[in-house]
């Protein structure tokens, strides 16, 4: 008995030994540069485009991106398991302090649109900041509320309870939306706050899993309102509300509207790339007020020089050539000012303490 157990263990050890050996040899023979990234699901569609383009232009380059969610991306880059992370929410000072020095690079932006299910309406619904935050706070309960009716003259709104829909899981979209509500509404800022998941105050609100969950609930429920990334609303042919910006103009969510919003924050972004790009000043009349960046998280320093150079080239590609794809996938192009800013940020990357070429 004992002997046979020993034999079995020996056999297992032998097998394990063999497999680890083969693992080593395969690593040493591969000469190509391999980069791994992880994080945001929001950037996944455009990230795969960027990766395939970059790989076809650079032979021997292998980039692997795991869309496991921003939180997971932050954890992995913190633990040094991946070369870069992608997050829909920028890291705050407390998070930065707990990690090795990080560079945060805004790499694409997108508007968050307000979608609704009111079959009676023939033209786009118009919502002021006050109306939108009232609905999500639960203080505006009926579509006939004067706060909504006032900005939709000549429209008969239904006498229906508003069904408030939000994302059930932590999401960058929620972060953008709640950042906007916190900026325009003091009560929201005080009682709820901003983040990738919040304590939704409206009683009886519904949470949908993922953007497809939110659009699914909105499509099904008459009288509902929800928020989602622009491409989900356009793909599902859902109506989107026009939002009043600071200039007093009614703006439809478009990728260009988000780009205009970013451009309005150029100076503030140069000081801190984490500046929220919601509710831009009245000087930008075409800006759509609810949009946000997604960020690449890159450790400032790394040991492997060829990996670091490849990573730098990839990020350089993303913020220049890569931006041309943005529009076709309903992401917003970065304005030139931010591209320049990103360029200086990438310049801070080092390998083993030495600046890169």
């Amino acid at each position, binding site marked *: 008995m004992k002997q046979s157990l020993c034999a079995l263990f020996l056999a297992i050890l032998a097998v394990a030994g063999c497999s680890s050996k083969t693992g080593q040899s395969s690593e040493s023979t591969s000469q190509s540069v391999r980069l791994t990234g992880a994080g945001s699901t929001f950037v996944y569609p455009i990230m795969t485009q960027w990766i395939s383009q970059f790989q076809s232009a650079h032979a021997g380059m292998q980039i692997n991106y795991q869309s496991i969610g921003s*939180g997971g991306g*932050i954890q992995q880059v913190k633990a040094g398991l991946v070369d870069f992370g992608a997050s829909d929410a920028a890291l705050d000072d407390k998070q930065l302090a707990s990690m090795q020095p990080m560079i945060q690079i805004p790499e694409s932006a997108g508007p968050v649109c307000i979608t609704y299910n009111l079959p009676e309406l023939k033209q786009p619904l118009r919502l002021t900041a006050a109306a939108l935050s009232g609905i999500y706070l639960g203080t505006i309960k009926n579509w006939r509320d004067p706060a909504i009716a006032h900005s939709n003259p000549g429209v008969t709104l239904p006498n229906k309870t508003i069904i408030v829909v939000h994302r059930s899981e932590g999401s960058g979209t929620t972060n953008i939306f709640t950042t906007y509500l916190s900026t325009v509404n003091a009560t929201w800022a005080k009682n709820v706050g901003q*983040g990738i*998941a919040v*304590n939704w105050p409206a009683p009886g*609100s*519904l949470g*949908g899993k993922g953007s497809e969950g939110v659009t699914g*609930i909105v499509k*099904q429920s008459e009288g509902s309102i929800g928020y989602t990334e622009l491409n989900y609303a356009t793909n599902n042919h859902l109506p989107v509300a026009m939002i009043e910006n600071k200039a007093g103009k009614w703006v439809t969510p478009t990728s260009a509207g988000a780009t205009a919003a970013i451009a309005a924050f150029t100076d503030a972004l140069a000081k801190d790339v984490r500046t929220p790009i919601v509710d831009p000043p009245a000087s930008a009349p075409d800006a759509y007020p609810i949009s946000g960046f997604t960020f690449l998280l890159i450790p400032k320093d790394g040991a492997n020089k060829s990996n670091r150079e490849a990573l730098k080239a990839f990020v350089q590609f993303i913020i220049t050539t890569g931006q041309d794809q943005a529009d076709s996938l309903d992401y917003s192009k970065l304005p030139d000012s931010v591209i320049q800013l990103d360029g200086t940020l990438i310049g801070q990357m080092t390998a083993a303490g030495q600046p890169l070429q």
Partner: protein
Amino acid sequence: MTTTDLAAPAGNGFTGVWRRLRNFDLGDSVAYSITLLAGTGIFILVGVLLVELWLNSRLARHEFGWKFLFTSIWDPIAQHFGALPFLYGTLVTSLLALIIAIPLGLGTAIFLVELVPAWLSDWLAFIIDLLAAVPSVVYGLLGIFVLVPIIRSGVEPFLQSTLGSLPLFQGPAYGFGFLAAGVVLGIMVVPFIVSVSREVLLAVPQEQREAALSLGATQWEAASQVVVPYARSGIFGSIFLALARALGETMAVTMVIGNDPSIHTSLFASGYSIAAVIANEFAEATSTLYIHVLIELGLILFGLTFILNALARLLILATVRRGTVRP
């Protein structure tokens, strides 16, 4: 002579070792070791799981203590967390699922065993087994696109007009909520009850039926008063298997429950379950406390399943009588 002398011990040695090996019966002992490894592996796995859940929830346990179980605030921004709405949602939806699934499943099993010819019974059982293999996300989609509209425009208004005086059936009809989640879960766990109960009912000796029939019992009386009580223990087993499935179900529940961490008496209101909140928020949980809170919820679900299974064992022990079929 000398050569044979030298050769003889060698030959003896070889055949001796061979014989000893044969006597030792290598095949049996290898099989024994493999099954022993597999068996202990399960215990080790459960142990590792518990230790991991315990260690990785320490921040949450230190921060909130037992209060965590009785707090109903869920505010990731202010880092205030409580498990009560999730516990409530998990228990309510699972209970609802059992209320729907037990009569349906047991009825189907009795029908398949007692009333249908054997060949048809096998075919129907095969189809029901297939239902158990349908991925839960498919049930979730079925819930969103078929059940929720029916519940919103048919079931909920009906319940409200007939039983609306009960607090269980009040409030606006959204479709999404405890009721929808309970119904979807009920549909999902029916195959488990049917499949296991059918096997147990089939195992009831034919003599039992014949005896009942010969005493003048109708077919239904024989089934309900002789066959089902005989198989009671196995049927309980199937119900607890279904309960375990319902408690841990994630995807289908999160798609229809409304994902609102609050407690409502009304079944029409939206709620949340433990498994759903872990799946929803884990990937994007950024702070360590937040992650530990979600892992503690996992620990609670583990504990809940354990307690309910223990209660199930006790129930079976208390109700089992001589002559029943053990599952």
